[in-house]
């Protein structure tokens, strides 16, 4: 399933501050004809990629056309012949499937960021001030989580609950969303009382205004977000160039404020 980008206002503000930040990059003249690369991106990037894409287009004249979904949905589509140029997954295993199918341009998935899992609740929740023990609070009837089979953040959340010895207590309360963006929607709309969501979503302007988050202790396997360029892509060079840019120190150092951790 494809999700359409929302929260235009927060996006605009972030974009403006970013174009100021990356102003130096525009010195490279955009002489080459404007090109587009098609990117399939994990749903946790829904708040991050529009900002980066704007900065990248500003710097190079190359546009990113992005489709969002759970990493599994995107991998399924790519394995079944979807003509995309770049796959930005939220983990290692789904791009690895693309590599194994012989569809990738490189022998290994390329890491570009690390994800962080947070527990989020609305500010008007009786569970404020929020802390991790809220998960086992008897007042809590619903906890939103992403599907552990499709969404790397869901897998991390299940693993964290298990390591924290909370899984047995929390399991009956879990409501499962298709991807991490929908998980955030469940708890943002007040239907779920708590949500285990990505820090990328939790650190957007909208989510910091209406809620608070606490970090989930780092007991879950690393959410190592990896990418592959598709071998059949006509814009392989451009896709690699974007990926290199994404992995460059200046961009990596700007990731934390958007809820991601640099890979190096």
């Amino acid at each position, binding site marked *: 399933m494809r999700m359409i980008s929302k929260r235009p206002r927060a996006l605009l503000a972030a974009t403006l501050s970013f174009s100021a930040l990356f102003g130096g990059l525009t010195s490279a003249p955009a002489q080459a004809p404007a090109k587009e690369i098609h990117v399939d991106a994990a749903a946790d990037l829904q708040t991050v990629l529009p900002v980066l894409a704007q900065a990248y287009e500003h710097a190079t004249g190359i546009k990113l056309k992005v489709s969002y979904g759970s990493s599994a949905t995107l991998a*399924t589509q790519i394995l079944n012949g979807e003509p995309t140029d770049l796959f930005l997954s939220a983990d290692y295993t789904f791009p690895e499937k693309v590599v194994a199918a012989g569809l990738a341009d490189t022998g290994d998935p390329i890491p570009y960021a690390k994800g962080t899992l947070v527990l989020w609740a609305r500010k008007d929740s009786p569970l404020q001030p929020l802390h991790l023990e809220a998960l086992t609070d008897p007042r809590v009837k*619903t906890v939103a989580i992403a599907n552990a089979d499709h969404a790397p953040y869901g897998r991390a959340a299940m693993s964290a609950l298990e390591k924290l010895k909370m899984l047995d207590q929390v399991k009956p309360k879990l409501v499962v969303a298709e991807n991490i963006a929908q998980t955030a929607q*469940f708890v943002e709309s007040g239907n779920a009382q708590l949500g285990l969501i990505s820090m990328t979503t939790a650190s957007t302007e909208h989510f910091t205004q209406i809620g608070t988050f606490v970090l989930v202790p780092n007991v879950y396997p690393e959410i190592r977000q990896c990418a592959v360029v598709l071998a059949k892509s006509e814009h392989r060079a451009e896709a690699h160039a974007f990926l290199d840019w994404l992995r460059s120190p200046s961009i990596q150092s700007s990731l934390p404020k958007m809820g991601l951790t640099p890979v190096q």
Partner: protein
Amino acid sequence: MDIEALLLTLRLALSTTALLLLIALPLAWWIVSGRGFGRALVQAIVALPLVLPPTVLGFYLLVMMGPLTPIGRLLIRLVGHPLAFSFAGLLVGSVLYSLPFAVQPLVSGFSSIDPGYLEAANGLGASPGRIFRTIILPLSRRSVLTSIILTFTHTVGEFGVVLMLGGNIPGATRTMSISLYDQVQEFDYAAANRTALTLIAVALAALFVIYLLPGRMSRRAERGELA
């Protein structure tokens, strides 16, 4: 195969069909029993779920039935818990989603009844309830059956609304279509095939009944068994 999901889907489809029949019969009759601005507007609103993407319908329901709206708070007070992520929530979603499939066949069936019968019955002093039971319903039997079966099959195949509203809870909101989607996502194509075949079998059987039964009825009617 996910038997729990199959049973849940059948329960949801049967409950939706029963509830929608109760809503659609009087609604369709009201629509055909006159003309005017109000009726046209209601008919247009009834047809809206045909146009709206089910995921959008599901999203609006999620927000509307949540604790952030007055309607949602009222519902939560009445039911005791938010409707989203529960069978009751799916039932509300399914009723709205399948509404046009229940109402449209009835509207076309009712509007093809010769008003002469109704005037005659009225002239002979039959009550409106009796006219509905003894004339309108028997004469539009085929439409009622079509409405029932279309509602049922449409609910069995429902996906977007359940995806947005359900929360994928085994036994409560994980229907066949969600289970099928999960199996595809998990690259378990064999299980996905079995689920898909079951869905096809249910739909085919139900649709087969539509095309089979009315024919039998009309033959019985010809032999004068249908008084």
